[in-house]
């Protein structure tokens, strides 16, 4: 630390204050990022991380304070090129243009021109391919960028940032949409780039990742800088305490009462197959039981969960919800049979962003909203009010559009929608993706509460924190159930099973 104080930081924000109307998004915040480090920025939703990112990337001017690069003042906001030579950000939201090819995205607005001022497409493609090869990104530059998956897109965006000369890259929750294998590849790449002299600011909700990849961590809370220290000097509990402002450890879920042996079967899946995605799956979930469906992306866990929710129709096999067989592939029928569903991507399937919280939360229960197909606003708002209270959604009222909420609260709305119909089987896919620690604990607490009321719960995820509260864990690999574990499992056993590795083989 002593050396850090004397050396010139690569990037530095000093006494930065930013207000949006009444809200103070940053209050005399500061951060110092030393060259060659991988620096973590953590904080709960609303801590000011996004605002700091837009100030560090020159998209918004600070009201007070200043940003310095290598000791020099930041360029003018209008001088985008100067900013791009210093800093780049890979956002959760894509900043590529899906219709254009990868090559053109890399060199947009700085195409190679011939002497008539026309674009030299072949040269451009070669240059793009060479750029990707330099940073060993294996992507065909002639593909439309919209066909890349999240991982490839991130790599392309990182390569683009490097091509501008920036050696400081902000990664805004890069792992939120990746599975475990892709995260491992991302980390490998970060380490390689770090050795080549690239500095990273890494923003994540997954504290484990910060311990894995970062040297230094800065915690923001309530628009202020709380602490900056080396990761090794900070325990999990201290980190969470700094983020939460209170000493709460990451909960190791208290042991759950055993499900009574005579509890009825809530969900009975027999011999379910869906193309090559999953085959011959048998799962029984009893009322009050929480069953985890672990597996990497592509293991079939998501598709299996979606089949139970009625989004997909299996090729063969049966699904019974408390003795009733909904028509395969029919969401309304699954709903009527008592399935509550939290889909995998809230922005995509979870809510309608421009509609209000009340409309979204009650979307699954139109029949309760009024007589003869008419919607009674008062009844809807009363139902929604109860759901908002139940899930502690932070909002001035039920009429606020969901897009005005933070990520954690948006996910609570999705959960509210799933719980609105008092489901007898609750199916959740990665229910805590991209939400802060507090909301995460809260959402999982709600899941337990739902189970305690006698619903069967299925959680499909590769996020171990989501799965800790499960009474039983089923692990899927390449479309098959490969392991079943009682609660009290070890992390490495589950991870190994999800990756299709046998631990005894690994030990040898």
């Amino acid at each position, binding site marked *: 630390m002593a050396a850090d104080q004397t050396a010139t930081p690569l990037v530095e924000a000093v006494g930065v204050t930013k207000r949006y109307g009444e809200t103070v998004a940053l209050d005399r915040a500061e951060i110092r990022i030393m060259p060659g480090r991988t620096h973590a920025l953590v904080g709960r939703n609303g801590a000011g991380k996004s605002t700091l990112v837009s100030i560090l990337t020159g998209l918004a001017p600070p009201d007070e304070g200043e940003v310095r690069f290598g000791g020099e003042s930041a360029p003018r906001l209008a001088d*985008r*090129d100067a900013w*791009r030579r210093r800093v780049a950000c890979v956002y959760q939201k*894509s*900043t*590529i*243009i*899906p*219709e*254009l090819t990868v090559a*053109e*995205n890399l060199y*947009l*607005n*700085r*195409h190679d*021109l011939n002497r008539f*001022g*026309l*674009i030299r*497409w072949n040269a451009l493609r070669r240059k793009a391919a060479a750029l990707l090869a330099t940073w060993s990104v*294996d*992507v*065909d530059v*002639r*593909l*439309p960028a919209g*066909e890349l*998956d999240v991982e490839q897109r991130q790599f392309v965006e990182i390569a683009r940032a490097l091509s501008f000369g920036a050696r400081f890259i902000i990664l805004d929750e890069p792992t939120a949409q990746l*599975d475990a*294998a*892709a995260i491992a*590849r991302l980390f490998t790449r970060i380490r390689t780039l770090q050795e080549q002299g690239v500095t990273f600011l890494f923003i994540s909700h997954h504290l484990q990742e910060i311990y894995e990849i970062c040297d230094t961590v800065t915690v923001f809370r309530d628009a202020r800088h709380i602490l900056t220290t080396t990761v090794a000097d900070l325990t999990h509990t201290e980190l969470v305490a700094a983020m939460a402002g209170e000493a709460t450890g990451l909960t190791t879920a208290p042991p759950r009462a055993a499900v009574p042996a005579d509890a009825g079967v809530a969900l009975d899946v027999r011999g379910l197959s869906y*193309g*090559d*995605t999953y085959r011959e799956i048998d799962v029984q979930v009893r009322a009050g039981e929480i069953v985890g469906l672990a597996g990497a*992306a*592509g293991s*079939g866990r*998501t*598709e299996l969960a979606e089949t139970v929710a009625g989004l997909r129709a299996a090729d063969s096999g049966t699904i019974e919800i408390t003795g009733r067989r909904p028509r395969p592939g029919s969401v309304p029928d699954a709903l009527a049979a008592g399935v509550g569903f939290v889909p995998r991507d809230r922005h995509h399937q979870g809510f309608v962003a421009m509609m209000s919280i009340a409309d979204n939360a009650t979307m699954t229960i139109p029949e309760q909203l009024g007589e003869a197909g008419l919607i009674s606003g008062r009844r809807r708002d009363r139902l929604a009010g109860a759901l908002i209270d139940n899930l502690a959604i932070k909002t001035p009222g039920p009429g606020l559009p969901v897009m005005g909420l933070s990520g954690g609260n948006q996910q609570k709305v999705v959960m509210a929608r799933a719980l609105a119909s008092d489901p007898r089987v609750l199916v959740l896919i990665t229910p805590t993706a991209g939400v802060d620690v507090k909301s995460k604990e809260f959402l999982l607490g709600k899941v337990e509460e739902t189970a305690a009321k006698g619903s069967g719960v299925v959680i499909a995820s590769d996020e171990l924190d989501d799965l800790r509260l499960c009474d039983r864990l089923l692990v899927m690999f390449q479309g098959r159930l490969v392991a079943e574990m009682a609660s009290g499992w070890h992390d490495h056993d589950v991870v190994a099973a999800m990756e299709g590795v046998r631990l005894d083989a690994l030990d040898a």
Partner: protein
Amino acid sequence: MPSTPEKTRAPAPESAAPERERPRVRFARLRDLALIPAIIVIAVVGQIVHPIFLQGDNLINILQTMSEISLLVMAQTLVLVAGKMDLSLESTFGLAPGVAAWLTVAVGSGAGLGVLSGAWAIPITLAVGVLIGAINALLIVRFGLNGFIVTLGMLIVLRGLLTGISGGQTFFNLPPSMLYLGSALWLGVPASIWLCLLLFAVGIVLLGFTRHGRALYALGGNVDAAKAAGIRTDRVLWTVLVGASLLAALGGLLLSGRLASVAAAQGDGAIFTVFAAAVIGGVSLNGGKGTMFGAFTGILLLYMIQNVLTLAGVPAQWIQALNGAIILIALILSRLTGGKVQD
């Protein structure tokens, strides 16, 4: 079903990935030529229906009748690629030459005022086009109003203005300068065909091979990404909207020259054909997708079909219903061949 669409698995596919994707790339290039088979089929059918179809005179006839509206298609393609729509183009198509005629045609011949000499006709036409484009841009870009509704309002206002200044009548006795481009022959081929082909050639180069053109795709595909890449998105939109109106005015000038008159209804309803041609030609209504060549094949196909129908002796009263049906069939066909959901 080799794998789930969700994810490519494992760090193995180093060599597999490019191979897997190559066919799609080829296909993306072919998308540009998607209508060529259809055009050939229509040419064959046309020749069977009537042996005159493939003769030079008839082909020139087809090209000339489509030359004016094809400039609207070109204008609309620019606007659509940039992620907007301009409905008012069809009214500009009538109003711009209408104003020129109003000011230059001698008193006593229709509603002409005769206040300016005939030499002013072309500059006025083009200036009106620029002015309308600037108003559109002001409302859409500067004031952030919804482009669809703004240009819908402009469509109605401009049409009303033309009806107003003309008293609902047709302007005759246009000055010779207005007649020239629409009626002259260059090397035995109407000047309007030369102009149309030349402008499309410029358009193809502009959209495909210049930074300005690619900026339109970036803008239509993802505004934020375009801004982040240093594209001055507002300025680009201004240019596009003004340029589109200018093209529409020029198209109107060509038509007025060919017909030697400006009717109060000039261009009325043309916007539907324009949109149809653009969409059939592969231009996305959501922006960021489509080429100038595709748009050209779109309007060419529609006019060839119309010509075949006329040659086949289909009663004029039925042509419109058939036109609508053809647009739908063309869309269905391009959905089947394109394979993707259209947007």
